[in-house]
């Protein structure tokens, strides 16, 4: 049974019936799903969640579908890892890594939103799905729609990493590479979406799709033993994930699943594309769009649709923001790999690097609980680190050659 009452404009509060629309006809504000929390409170409990499937669908009551979920049945419930090595390296007491680099099936948190988007698109009766993507969303839409037997059109900036292109093409989509930035891809897609009646997951399905990100936040709280951490560092591009993690924690509080939310939320961006972090640090109310220039291509959104809400989330929670240069991003990726054995993509490097900076700046207390959001897998962005990780040491197939290596070449870790 659905707990969705309808949709509501985040700006002017006008209400709309449940439908594949995403923007208020009157003020252009973003629409959001409107739930009946009273009914949810009656039917959902911690116990019910704990007995649910080991996937995002254990939180089904808090997701905007009417029937049973049809997609992403193995998506979510990724590990929350208690860090020892990285905690020691950063000099902090209690550190966790929420690791969506192992998300099923396409190794990024985008599987969560696509699982919800496709379940919903089918309820609306669409037979074609589409998206504008910096790569991870493309991979996830391709994989899920292949399984679901839906037609697929995927739009990406032409300069994406090879790993992300291959991990889309393998599912035989219509893959359209556009000569331009993600913001240009997005603008074009908005125009295509008003012409072709497809389920554009990040456009006309956006209010439903974006709700999938809440499961990342729910899992953090549940896996911490039904408690909200004191600090969460989140990568920011369009600004959706960070707002939804905050929403998730507050929903859990409203439902009595966590006793308090004293979480400070921090935004992490790349230095070459930091419209949200810049606004936070300059205490500005205006998110000034930028032309991105960074190796963190999955975060290269210069005109973030939810940037304002991301900034509000940070302010409301008492958090802050930090950005990382390209070399700090690479160092962040390497640091996480060396200390925790997790190979994350560039966005993860941004988050690790930003965490380090926020600690150094004294913005995050070393004695508090900290969760770092790792949202994607490093195998997809190998170009970013390839020149910074050494080379294999080539030898002849002889014992002598190997002994020679031990004498001079061995890595001391």
């Amino acid at each position, binding site marked *: 049974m659905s707990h969705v009452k309808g949709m509501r404009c985040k700006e002017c509060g006008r209400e709309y019936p449940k439908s594949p629309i995403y923007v208020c006809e009157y*003020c*252009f504000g973003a629409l959001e799903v409107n739930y009946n929390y009273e009914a949810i409170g009656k039917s959902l409990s911690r116990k019910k969640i704990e007995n649910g499937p080991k996937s995002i669908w254990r939180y089904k009551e808090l997701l905007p579908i009417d029937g049973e979920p049809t997609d992403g049945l193995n998506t979510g419930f990724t590990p929350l890892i208690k860090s020892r090595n990285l905690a020691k390296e950063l000099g902090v007491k209690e550190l966790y890594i929420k690791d969506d680099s192992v998300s099923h099936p396409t190794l990024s948190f985008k599987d969560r939103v696509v699982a919800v988007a496709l379940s919903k698109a089918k309820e609306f009766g669409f037979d074609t799905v589409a998206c504008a993507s910096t790569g991870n969303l493309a991979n996830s839409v391709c994989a899920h729609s292949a399984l679901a037997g839906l037609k697929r059109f995927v739009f990406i900036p032409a300069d994406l990493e090879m790993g992300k292109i291959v991990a889309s093409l393998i599912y035989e989509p219509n893959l359209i590479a556009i000569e331009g930035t*993600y913001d240009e891809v997005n*603008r074009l897609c908005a125009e295509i979406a008003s012409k072709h009646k497809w389920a554009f997951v990040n456009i006309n399905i*956006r209010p439903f799709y974006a709700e999938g990100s809440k499961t990342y936040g729910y899992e953090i709280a549940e896996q911490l033993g039904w408690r909200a951490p004191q600090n969460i560092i989140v990568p920011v*591009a*369009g600004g959706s994930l*960070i707002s939804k993690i905050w929403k998730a924690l507050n929903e859990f509080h409203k439902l009595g699943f966590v006793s308090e939310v004293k979480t400070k939320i921090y935004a992490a961006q790349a230095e070459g594309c930091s419209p949200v972090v810049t606004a936070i640090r300059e205490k500005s109310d205006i998110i000034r769009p930028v032309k991105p220039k960074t190796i963190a291509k999955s975060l290269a959104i210069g005109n973030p649709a939810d940037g304002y809400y991301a900034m509000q989330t940070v302010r409301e929670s008492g958090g802050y923001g930090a950005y990382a240069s390209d070399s700090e991003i690479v160092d962040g990726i390497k640091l996480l790999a060396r200390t925790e054995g997790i190979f994350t993509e560039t966005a993860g490097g941004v988050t690790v690097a930003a965490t380090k900076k926020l600690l150094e700046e004294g913005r995050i207390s070393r004695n508090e609980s900290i969760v770092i959001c790792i949202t994607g897998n490093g195998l997809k962005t190998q170009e970013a680190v390839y020149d910074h990780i050494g080379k294999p040491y080539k030898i002849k197939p002889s014992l002598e050659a190997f002994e020679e290596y031990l004498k001079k070449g061995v890595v001391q870790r």
Partner: protein
Amino acid sequence: MSARVRIPTPLQKVTGNQAEVDCEGSNVRELITNLDNKYKGIKDRICDENGKVRRFVNIYINEEDIRFLKGEDTGIKDGDEVSIIPAIAGGY
């Protein structure tokens, strides 16, 4: 100066279901005023109570965001293409 303006779906009710309309104006501000003269109510949708373009509305001239040009003072030439597009989510 006459430009071709692409109208997003949520605004097409105001333009009588037209997805593209032609409109005069020497700059963006004037164009919006003229659009409103032809299609009553369009300005209230695009602009806030102070007459400024709402922060979640993007306007492009020949594919370039006017915030990278001169904002609402950006000039319009004959034959320019103007797109009005609501903010779109994506990425993280």
